[in-house]
């Protein structure tokens, strides 16, 4: 069974969108960590994570975003989160993560929130 998938695509504005699906727990978190790591190594600093098909997240999943947020922002980029199901948002909310992460209702809104590159 495929418990978790993360698929990355870059748009014409240089924003990498990572579509999550399934269950993000202590088992699958390492997978996401290596995917985000690849995205960053490939030079992207404008990252949107699409949670639309994510059914579950535990603290191991939360931890993945903490690993990268500091350095991505230091480079002038961001990791913006989008389209969470309420049950997933609840976990972020439980620990106050919305203070640190920008969370948008849709992927489109998250993308729009990045300043245009030619600004």
């Amino acid at each position, binding site marked *: *069974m495929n*418990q978790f998938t993360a698929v990355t695509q870059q748009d014409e504005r240089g924003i990498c969108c990572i579509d999550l699906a399934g*269950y993000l*727990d*202590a*088992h699958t978190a390492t997978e996401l960590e290596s995917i985000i790591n690849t995205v960053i190594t490939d030079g992207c600093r404008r990252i949107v994570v699409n949670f639309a098909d994510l059914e*579950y997240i*535990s*603290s*191991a999943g*939360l*931890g993945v975003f*903490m*690993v990268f*947020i*500091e350095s991505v922002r230091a480079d002038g980029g961001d990791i913006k989160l989008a389209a969470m199901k309420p*049950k997933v948002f*609840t*976990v972020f909310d*439980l*620990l*106050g*993560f919305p*203070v*640190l992460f920008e969370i948008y209702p849709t992927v489109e809104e998250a993308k729009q929130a990045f300043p245009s590159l030619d600004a």
Partner: protein
Amino acid sequence: MTSPVSHNGIITVPATTDHLHEIREFLRARIRAAGFSEFEENGIVLAVDEACSNLIRHAYHNDPTQSVEVALVIDPDVVTVSISDTATPFDPNSAQVPDMPTYLQERRNGGLGILIMRRVMDAIDYVPCGPTTNRNMLVLTKRRTA
């Protein structure tokens, strides 16, 4: 005297993280069938997942020859999940949990599982192994809210 439909049960899995999913599904189906809210169900499942993740990662280091046993007992107004193991005892009640504002400000990482357990559950009781048994038991309790 006898419960007509039982949602109680035990699941025993090897101590590797790829089995966490099975534990969650096991709990979900039964807690839901017992008529608890989806909110309560999600909370309990998350807390147990955190506890089992800790056992598997910190106590058993993903050793597939070891196992984790999760016993679910659903009473009319309380769900009790007993997680037992034979690893080195570790009482999550004795752990320091982070202050979240500081944590987030300092961009720390990890160390949130026990805090989640405490926030979600009504009681966390740890009974280390001892003269009467070689098993440690972590008892997580959640009362029905509605």
